[in-house]
């Protein structure tokens, strides 16, 4: 079975972003970029499926500017087989899902594993949209994935706990934090990855209409919280909470 893993290049999760002075967006120049952490988890999941003999071809796809190729190389060094770079910038989840739909159909993949959320725009939409466009079955927020011959047993993290679904293939799975711990690429694998193929595809050749639907009018810093105080004892803390903040009873 072929598996498709969409990966996104994002501002590193541990960078505290700054809003641009003209309020048009956040500053992404000279900021550390990384593979979206949830996408790393998806790549790791795909590699484990290949190691278990359930998958024989891992195809990465990233939609973005030229530097998306670096992110693809990272995934190839982890152990993916080949990659597709779709050149475009700042696509909305619907357009990304349409592009993924085109690739998944063309490559005849049996399974798509992807992040539940990209930590830049925090949309948490693309996987659900891809399932809707393909009419494949869907399990979001997976913390457990057991791939059988024609179904996946997927454990999902939901607000009340866990939910276990039987998901017929072909399927779209979006992964949550606790599915696995992604491996680091070893030096020999980084060298090997340089020879792995990366195809470039133009968005237009996939027939995707990428006209934006949602315009960003303005981006602002969150309101700052007023400075707090340090208290020196539990008794002082309780006193403040009772008598100053009045959030707990006497």
């Amino acid at each position, binding site marked *: 079975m072929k598996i498709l893993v969409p990966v996104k290049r994002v501002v590193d*999760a541990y960078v*505290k*972003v700054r809003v641009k002075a003209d309020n048009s967006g*956040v500053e992404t120049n000279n900021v550390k970029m990384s593979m979206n952490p*949830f996408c790393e988890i998806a790549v790791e999941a795909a590699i484990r499926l290949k190691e278990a003999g359930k998958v024989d071809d891992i195809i990465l796809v990233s939609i973005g500017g030229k530097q998306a190729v670096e992110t693809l190389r990272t995934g190839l060094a982890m152990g993916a087989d080949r990659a597709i770079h779709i050149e475009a910038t700042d696509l909305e*989840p*619907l357009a990304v899902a349409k592009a993924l739909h085109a690739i998944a159909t063309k490559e005849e993949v049996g399974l798509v594993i992807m992040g*539940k*959320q990209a*930590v*830049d725009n*925090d949309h948490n*939409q*693309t996987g*659900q949209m*891809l*399932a*809707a466009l393909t009419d*494949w*079955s*869907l399990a*979001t927020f997976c913390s457990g994935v057991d791939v059988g011959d024609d179904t996946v*047993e997927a454990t*999902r*993290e*939901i*607000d*009340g*706990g*866990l*939910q*276990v*679904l*039987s998901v*017929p293939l072909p399927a779209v799975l979006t992964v*949550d*934090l*606790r599915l696995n711990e992604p491996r680091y690429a070893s030096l020999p694998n980084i060298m090997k990855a340089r020879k792995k193929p990366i195809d470039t595809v133009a968005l237009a050749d996939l027939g995707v209409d990428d006209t934006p*639907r*949602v*315009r*960003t*009018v*303005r*981006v*602002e*810093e*969150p309101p700052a*919280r007023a400075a*707090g*105080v*340090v208290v020196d004892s*539990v*008794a002082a*803390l*309780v006193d403040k*909470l009772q008598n100053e*903040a009045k*959030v*707990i009873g006497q």
Partner: protein
Amino acid sequence: MSILIIAEHAEGVLKPSTLNAVAAGVEIQSHTGGDLDVLVAGHEIAPVASQAQAIQGVATVLTADSPAYGFGGAASIGGLIANLAGYSHVLAPATSYGKNIIPFAAAKQDVQAISDITAVRDAKTFVRPIYAGNAFATVETSDAIVLVTVRTTAFEAVADTGGSAAMRAVDVMTAEPTTLLRNELTKLERPELTSARVVVSGGRGMQNGENFAMLERVADKLGGAVGASRAAVDAGYVTNDYQVGQTGKVVAPELYLAVGISGAIQHLAGMKDSKVIAAINKDADAPIFQVADYGLVADLFTAIPELEETL
């Protein structure tokens, strides 16, 4: 055109998150006019439908009753939503339930959904957090139908009594390709995390799951819920449904007490809007103190028993 709110419910009980989504709907309605309806989809939902009828401001409760909707799958409920005509806006709470179905329904209608709105500017313009809440974007959609998920902590719940909505059954028409094998739900012994007045959260500093019992006792004295950082969940101290943060639950209680939590941006993203934040951490430089109204630099293993004693 009308506004449709997707009700969230479990075991015959309407979830309070629905009331926050209705509140956002009411704000949109002040710009658009039209009716505000609620969809209750599920299996054997009569009790939920009558609770929804009593919500203030609701014109009609649509019911879709079928085993296919039993566990709230994205395909069945998202497909149903996409088939309901006459709505200019469709809203669901930004919970794991709403986040699962709204993008699915949106793509079925060739609409770009808007996630996690925290404010309504007009019928087409909304505010939403990006980058773990380190920035807020005002966004304007040009889609004919607007599908959004609503950050529950940003909209004060409407009253769940006093309304007298009409009731109308809608055709059940969609299939769910996935099947539920089982739910492994955490038994709730305290108020729900997202609607509790007080939240006491523990992090990696708690060292193990047994030590969370200390926080539970404090929470019980305050009538609160217990939450956790990702590190505490990853380490297996508590289950995933405790996680507060960018990729967990968003809470905004009257009092958030962070114990043994460093205050990473991803954690702050889920609790920064709490009315009062208190933190206990032995490291005076922990970033949690930058957002805390009251900070206590102390070893939690002496401070928490003392706190329990004092309360």
